[in-house]
């Protein structure tokens, strides 16, 4: 058995790949659910009900999808240029921290629209700066950014722990390790009253459109794609590689930082060390499931959100552990990689 490259990957295959991957992942995980003593079909039905069964559950799923769209876009932009940003989680947290810090006092006096904008920009700047350091080390000294961005996540987590226990600790929180809250008037307006769904979803969707525009239609996007597809040819054609990669790092880091800022200003109001259930890492899965297509990211983010929200409901109803959600998401990344292989190559006997 051998693999042969398909001359041109067909559109059907490209679109079908993520769905096949998700299906395969659900089939594979059925075994694990059965091991936990639960009928997999019941479990999946319960998950769907938990994610879509009521108005509330739908808003909850979409609220979960919001940060995933942004971290998914962060990974998409970076991966397209072959900048392996595995640090979305860290950028998410520094974005969240910057939003809480500035949103609690410094920006609180501004008119709300301006203040909210300020909070989001603060998050974006923080995320961008955090990714600029490893990106600079990569373009200047050839330091592997997979390692540096991944390890930065752990440093950031410790830093967040320090801040919410120390300088940014909320004095009114009865000693809980949480940061000062974003001022009430700077919280993002809700999309649906008395739910957790806020206008961040619209911001995330609009951002997906902008990222698509940037990658597909601008000079910078073409250069970033060229740098990712063939650095040698891009350099030969006069693409300023270092500048392009640093630009990509700024955008990617800013998107993940924005996710953190929006999560703080949209849902929780303050930062804790468990603000993110791995949004930064799941963003990588979202980006891969979307085939690194910005508009596909929105769909893939909803899928991952369904798994997370649905697994909670399933766990409450049937008693299977919630971390099956992490397993499904992780396995779907693996099955997606296999699906991509078969979309690009075909098997010859």
């Amino acid at each position, binding site marked *: 058995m051998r693999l042969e490259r398909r001359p041109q990957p067909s559109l059907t295959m490209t679109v079908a790949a993520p769905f096949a991957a998700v299906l395969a992942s659900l089939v594979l995980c059925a075994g694990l659910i059965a091991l936990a003593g639960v009928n997999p079909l019941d479990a999946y039905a319960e998950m769907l009900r938990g994610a879509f069964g009521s108005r509330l559950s739908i808003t909850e799923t979409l609220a979960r999808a919001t940060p995933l769209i942004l971290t998914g876009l962060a990974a998409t932009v970076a991966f397209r240029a072959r900048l392996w940003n595995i640090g979305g989680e860290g950028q998410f947290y520094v974005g969240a921290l910057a939003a809480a810090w500035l949103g609690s006092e410094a920006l609180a006096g501004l008119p709300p629209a301006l203040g909210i904008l300020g909070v989001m920009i603060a998050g974006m700047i923080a995320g961008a700066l955090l990714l600029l350091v490893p990106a600079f080390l990569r373009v200047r000294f050839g330091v592997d950014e997979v390692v540096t961005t991944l390890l930065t996540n752990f440093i950031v987590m410790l830093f967040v722990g320090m801040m919410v226990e120390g300088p940014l600790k909320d004095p009114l929180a009865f000693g809980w390790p949480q940061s000062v809250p974003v001022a009430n008037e700077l919280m993002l307006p809700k999309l649906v009253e008395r739910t957790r769904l806020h206008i961040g979803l619209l911001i995330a969707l609009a951002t997906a459109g902008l990222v698509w525009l940037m990658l597909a*239609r601008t*000079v910078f996007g073409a250069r970033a794609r*060229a740098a990712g*597809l063939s650095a040698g040819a891009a*350099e*030969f054609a006069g693409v300023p590689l270092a500048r392009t990669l640093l630009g990509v790092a700024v955008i990617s880091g800013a998107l993940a930082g924005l996710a953190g800022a929006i999560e703080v200003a949209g849902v929780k109001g303050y930062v804790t060390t468990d603000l993110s259930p791995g949004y930064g890492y799941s963003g990588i899965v979202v980006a891969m499931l979307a085939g690194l297509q910005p508009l596909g990211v929105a769909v893939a983010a909803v899928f991952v959100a369904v798994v997370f929200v649905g697994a909670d409901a399933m766990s409450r109803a049937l008693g299977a552990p919630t971390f099956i959600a992490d397993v499904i998401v992780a396995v779907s990344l693996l099955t997606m990689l296999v699906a991509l292989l078969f979309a690009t190559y075909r098997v010859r006997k």
Partner: protein
Amino acid sequence: MTPVLELDGITKRFGALTANEDVSLSLGQGEILALLGENGAGKTTLMNILFGHYTADEGEVRVFGAPLPSGRPRAAIEAGVGMVHQHFTLAGNLTVLENITIGAEPLSRLMSATGPARRRLRELSDRFGLAVDPDARVGDLSVGERQRVEILKALYREAKILILDEPTAVLARPEAERLFQTLRGMTAEGLSLIFISHKLHEVMAASDRVVVLRRGRVAAERRTSETSAPELAELMVGRRVARPVREAQPPGAPVCIASAVTVTEGGRDLLDEADFTVHAGEILGIVGVAGNGQATLGRLLWGLTRPTRGRLALGTEDLGRMTPADCVAAGVGRIPEDRHAEGVVGEMTVWENATLERLSSPAFSRRGFVRRSAARAYAADLIRRFDIRGAEPDTRARLLSGGNMQKLILGRNLAQGPRLILANQPTRGLDEGAVAAVHAELLAARGAGAAVLLISEDLDEVLGLADRIQAIVKGRLSRPIPAEQADARRIGLMMAGAWDEPVPSSAGAS
């Protein structure tokens, strides 16, 4: 006498494409058979079927009379077939000995039996005249040496039939001649050989018999002694082709002047005090064996490396300080050595590749947004003007054949009417038809007044195109000689480093 190898009615289809159709050929004991054909004629596919990489849709392969089970390279190896691929399959971080024994030892053995393996390797390399140091790291070897390792690898596995896929694609002429001598010696030792080529002169020089493939079918079979290069060319292409001829033309003003340019990297002078001048309407040929500083010269001239010392001028500007983007803006047309790695981004479309160099110019973008319809129209124009076949503006560049990819690269440079053209190995790996087209374009650019610097390993190419010729050896350039005084012998000597040093004029002689 039964043939050692027979291919009988081989047909192989890839989707709609028929790569081989009803191909039959046989190889006799101790014979050198050349498989001649243009790129895409199906030569490599055929050999991959023989070696078990692909499975034929129809037909049979017989080795020493016994049918070979299809699709199993190991069966081919066991039957005594060895293959030397065009792109070597060696691990650069291992030694020669490790590369050769890897896969030939049973996995169950804990320790490698290096002693006997080393003895056998020595014996083989003495017997066939393939000298290599068994303990050298393959990554440190020259291309010619790596090829010897590949051949030894096949011999170590007791190959009786050796298949060489474009063995001279990476070799300079002296190395190629040496290789063919070696191959001749191997047939005397009882081996039988097939080599794949699209170069007529080496087929004529090195084979006993020629099978010509055209569009996947056997177009003809000839005894080498009973055919001629022009006949084979016609059989291969299916029509008459002739390389265009350079016509004398007075050169214009100097366009690019290098004075004592040195490039030092890691303590080594990759380019050592190089002097040359290219005039408008002139082709200056720089000829040399691969790995003598051509790559550095190329990188220097298209803005990827800066001179350590010396001056490189483009008119009144300093070419030495330019980036690739500056070069494009200054009217320097650049044809890179490696089409796939530097020339095009394979996964991008033809129109994106056609415009990537000048994407930020007002012609192709406005306020940071790409003017897609303008870019597509430009690409369509290039496709028409430069006869780029099999291409639409939205075709992925990867799908173009080598020759058409090169026409795309030429086109995007020549369409701008460049002042200076730097072409590094512009016809490497191209078939005759494409070579003629590339040569015609370069000569047309010269006729239009461009200064052309042609870096090439191909003697015939340099002799056919260049007005003046310099040789490059170990980063040093010879003084130029006019084309009229050049012949293959003199250039060959220059490429070996034997050029006339300036004789100090004896004072008071007259």
